[in-house]
């Protein structure tokens, strides 16, 4: 699907010792068309990184033996510039700074939404390549980002500012499930997890759906229960 924008299949090295998480992430990434190599320890990860060529390394920080930061420093020390996405259960500012200092390109705190992981992986794989302008339209829903207007089947939709921003965000990520956390951060600019915006987001989605998907028209805004929301033509 989305990897078709890149001519070759993306190769990802996943270094994660928690086998359930590793298998789930591997399956998820493979379902998106990536080729995933799995390593369960830091040393195994380093050997794999030495022998194969990867477009991206997804690295857990808490590993048996050599931990993630050591692996990262070793790779960067060897002059390897492969983008690295760090996964960690610790998210104090100090931990973040340590990870980014060691040369991580991005940082994701556990427990993460898979949708969020996918978004970060996409962003890192795309890095350096010009992003194709997203088609701001789904089926007969059209977005005019400059004029901040939206129409469905030629009829102008009457949206509040926030509703428009939310719809535009969903359409820009069409086909991808976005979590409430992503929406809170990117649409509401809320930096902190733990601020009760989930209900606010749900109400906005409900209202948006009433306007975008009126009775009798094909549904475009879908709720993926327990995960988030997605805009697409067909049922997910």
């Amino acid at each position: 699907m989305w990897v078709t924008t890149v001519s070759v299949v993306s190769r990802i090295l996943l270094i994660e010792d928690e086998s359930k998480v590793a298998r789930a992430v591997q399956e998820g990434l493979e379902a998106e068309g990536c080729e995933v190599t799995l390593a369960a320890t830091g040393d195994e990860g380093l050997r794999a990184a030495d022998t194969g060529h990867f477009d991206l390394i997804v690295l857990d920080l808490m590993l048996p033996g050599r931990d993630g930061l050591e692996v990262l420093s070793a790779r960067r020390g060897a002059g390897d510039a492969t983008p690295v996405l760090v996964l960690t259960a610790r998210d104090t500012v100090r931990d973040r700074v340590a990870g980014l200092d060691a040369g991580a390109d991005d940082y994701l705190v556990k427990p993460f939404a898979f949708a969020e992981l996918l978004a970060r992986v996409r962003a890192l794989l795309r890095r350096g390549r010009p992003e194709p302008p997203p088609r701001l339209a789904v089926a007969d829903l059209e977005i005019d980002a400059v004029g901040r207007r939206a129409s469905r089947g030629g009829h102008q939709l009457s949206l509040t500012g926030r509703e428009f921003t939310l719809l535009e965000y969903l359409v820009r990520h069409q086909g991808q499930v976005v979590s409430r956390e992503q929406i809170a951060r990117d649409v509401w600019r809320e930096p902190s997890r733990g601020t009760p915006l989930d209900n606010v987001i749900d109400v906005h989605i409900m209202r948006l759906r009433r306007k975008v998907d009126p009775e009798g028209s094909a549904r475009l805004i879908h709720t993926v229960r327990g995960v988030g929301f997605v805009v697409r033509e067909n049922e997910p």
Partner: protein
Amino acid sequence: MSWPRSVRARLAFWHGLALLFVVSVYAAAVLLQVQDDLYEALDSQLEGDFGRAVEWLQNGAPAGVPAAAADASTRDSDGGADVPWVDAWSPDGRRVFDAGRQPGLPVLSGPPAGWPRTPYSLIVAEGTRVRLLVREARSGRQPVYVRVGRSERFARQELGEFATVLGLSLPFAFAVAVAAGYLLARRALAPVSAMTSRARRITAEHLDERLPVENPTDEFGQLAGVVNDALDRLERAFATLRRFTADASHELRTPLTAIRSVGEVGLRERRGEAEYREMVGSILEETERLTAVVDSLLLLSRADEGKADLRPAPMSLDDLANEVAADLAVLAEEKRQNVRVEVSAAVTAVADRPTVRQAAINLLDNAIKHSPDGAVIRLVVRQEGPSAVLEVIDNGPGIAPEHLPHVFERFYRVDKARSPAAGSAGLGLSIARWAVEANEGRIEVESETSRGSVFRIVLPAAN
């Protein structure tokens, strides 16, 4: 000698030393005074001796020798009796009269060097001191120098005995002072021993024990009182922590139970794909709830450690109120509630905006949740002297007085049976309180059952 470790011994030692010093100074002063007195008496004796000697010399002496002087001639060399000596010298250095001469006295030819005309002491031999008085007189028509003298032996002997008595009594006084000081210190410090043995028994498991207070007004009583107050606070903190741990476990257990039941029931029989999707979704919803609880707990524990990253700066409190009201307006609209922002003048607080915003969102969210449909919720912003104040006022059901002191405690729920909505695990108000207090402000609540509640954020205002 090892330095005494106990306060008692040190007190006694210093007490004794201080007393020894005072007594020594006193003894020295007395000794000097006694010496002065003795010499004064000796000197007045010499004056008398001189007067008598001059009289003899003028009344036809040297024929008649005074009786005392005659006795003196018979005594042994170091002076067995306290009698004076007299001799008289012509200005050319001849002795013209002599009665009971003391061996070792120099020849008096002319006035002696540094002639004082008052009595003076002279050492005539090793350990033999004499007191002398030399003055001019006339023997018949001839001018002479008359010398009278007496041994200092008796005066010095008396002085020596007195000094011995004083010297011997000093160590005794020191010993008595040390002993008395020790007993006194032990009595005075007895409450400390009692506190020590009681304090040993106080542990995390026995925090209800308190130090004994014998006299609440003295220093030890005050110390024990202060320590007991600290123990009160510690006991309360421990109780809160214990309840918090229990509540946190309960709060985590609820979603875990849901996950487990949905999963187990789902596997009991074959189902269609749609049903499975529904179940997985339901499980994911519960994990969202778990994540929210854990995120909030982490936020609070990091706040407890003082690791929160705050950047206080001047911020408009009325802007914040408007923004928060706009953010949560949709929630109020769903319940046909009306959120009104009341600002009389621009108010600027000095605080870290994101954390204050979080506090305000939590308070307003709480008010919307607990107010009935159609209620009016007011956000009032004003300046009160050096403080910037934001009030969230609702006319909801209010909070009963017995719950009021606890509403900011973690996981405290007024309605125990009410199931929490996802993302609100009874931590919202705790986070609000932390957020405000971390910004050197305070959070207050006033409430009246069935009349409504006022939650108040008070922050330092910018000048």
